[in-house]
């Protein structure tokens, strides 16, 4: 085909799609609003997941195993044990904490209430070893395996690493991820059906027009392309609207939410959509709309000769 003619036909298809959207404004607005609601829910779920994952990362960065020596452990015992631990591949960093240092830390933590400690005759705190693991070993299984491996024959009274909390949070995160995934898939299918049926309604309302276009010599692509474009535009508009809603909520509520996150989880860091993700969401909306309209006009050739 002559490229100049193809450009003219392409321009015609775009103009036709925009005109059709304008003529069916009410139907178009309903579809775009529905897509926007679906996308808002999907994006909100994505943000929850991202923030949970970010929190997991932050928490994992802070995770350390504290080994409390028994009171009979000598300095040589502790040195041998610490050398052995430091040589293990899982270990990123070890820090010996003497009983005096431990007491000092406790005093600073209980600032203003240190009278409680003055009642004690001696320093009751044992020496301890703080161990930080490398990030690749920060899983429940790896941490538990490491702890089990170091306790045999060691001068150790107790080991603390927040195991119960770690297990619960990992389980909660897995359930949250699965729930979001299932709900997301359901919403995407739902949105796809909404777009497909809206375009089908538009095709149906314009069946006479399509028949006439075909009789006058419009090719299959020229009839279908405006519908594809309409679907993609509606999907993209829905996604943009959803992003605007999410951004508005973020502006209104996130200052307070950051404080809450810090209060409950010890971390003020929260993850929000960045430009690549926002562009990805718009592209996903357009693709979803395109897929819906492709399905809706798939049988046009068979219906109109």
């Amino acid at each position, binding site marked *: 085909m002559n490229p*100049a003619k193809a450009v003219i*036909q392409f321009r015609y298809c775009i103009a036709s799609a925009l005109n059709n959207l304008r003529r069916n404004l009410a139907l178009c607005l309903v579809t775009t609003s529905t897509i926007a609601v679906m996308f808002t829910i999907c994006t909100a779920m994505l943000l929850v997941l991202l923030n949970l994952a970010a929190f997991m990362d932050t928490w994992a960065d802070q995770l350390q195993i504290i080994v409390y020596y028994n009171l009979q452990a000598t300095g040589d015992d502790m040195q041998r044990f610490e050398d052995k631990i430091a040589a293990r591949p899982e270990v990123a960093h070890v820090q010996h904490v003497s009983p005096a240092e431990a007491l000092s830390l406790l005093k600073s933590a209980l600032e203003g209430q240190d009278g409680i400690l003055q009642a004690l005759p001696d320093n009751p705190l044992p020496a301890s070893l703080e161990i930080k693991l490398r990030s690749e070993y920060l899983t429940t299984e790896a941490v538990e395996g490491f702890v089990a491996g170091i306790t045999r024959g060691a001068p150790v009274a107790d080991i603390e690493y927040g195991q119960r909390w770690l297990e619960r949070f990992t389980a909660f995160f897995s359930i949250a991820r699965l729930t979001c995934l299932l709900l997301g898939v359901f919403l995407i299918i739902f949105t796809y059906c909404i777009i497909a049926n809206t375009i089908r309604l538009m095709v149906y309302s314009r069946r006479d027009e399509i028949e006439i276009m075909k009789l*006058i010599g419009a090719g299959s692509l020229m009839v279908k392309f405006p519908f594809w474009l309409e679907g993609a535009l509606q999907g993209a508009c829905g996604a943009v609207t959803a992003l605007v809603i999410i951004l508005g909520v973020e502006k209104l509520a996130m200052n307070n939410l950051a404080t809450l996150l810090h209060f409950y989880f010890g971390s003020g860091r929260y993850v929000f959509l960045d430009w690549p993700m926002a562009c990805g969401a718009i592209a996903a909306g357009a693709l979803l709309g395109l897929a819906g309209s492709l399905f809706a006009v798939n049988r046009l050739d068979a219906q109109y000769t």
Partner: protein
Amino acid sequence: MIHIHQTSKYYNSSIPALVDVSFKIRKGEFVFITGPSGAGKTTLLRLLFCAERPSSGEIILSGVNISRIKPPAIPALRRKIGVVFQDFKLITTWSVYENVAFPLEVMGTGRKTTRKKVWQALKWVGLLQKKDTLPLCLSGGEQQRVAIARAIVNNPLLLLADEPTGNLDPQLSVDIMKLFRAINARGTTIVVATHNRAMAEQFADTIVSLNRRHSVESC
């Protein structure tokens, strides 16, 4: 230009619409296909612009056997044919200008050329002043003239008209036929299907009579 050879059309494999029809139309001829209602006039025209496929026989149009044409080639063929439908088939949500411009847009004609050709076609049928009107705001005769303008705007080789005066009063019918005559004088081959034998005798170069779907005579 058109050679219809032993062409038959059956619906649902058994209901005959046309049986063993044969005739030829030369380039530049003004041909009327006449016959009573149900004789197969509309079916014959639908075969000519590939809205239907013949059950048997051959239809040669400008050297192309359109009875065996592949579906992707149909739009290109239709762009060479202008069709005036009995029910006008105008897109009611589009203005007169947009309706007439559509065949040119389908062909990828530039905006300036399109405007020039549409204005010429509308001037030709006397409706230039109504170019921005919606079809439903026009009278039957005016809608028919818009349909004619749309059919001739891209200078087709062949113009097919199915009962173009069926809904019009006698004076308007004569006006429309005069318009066809003028289009024919520019070199376009015209095939008009009508049950109005008197009209055919007044304007036709050739009359093809369809009788009980199968007998054909030319005069």
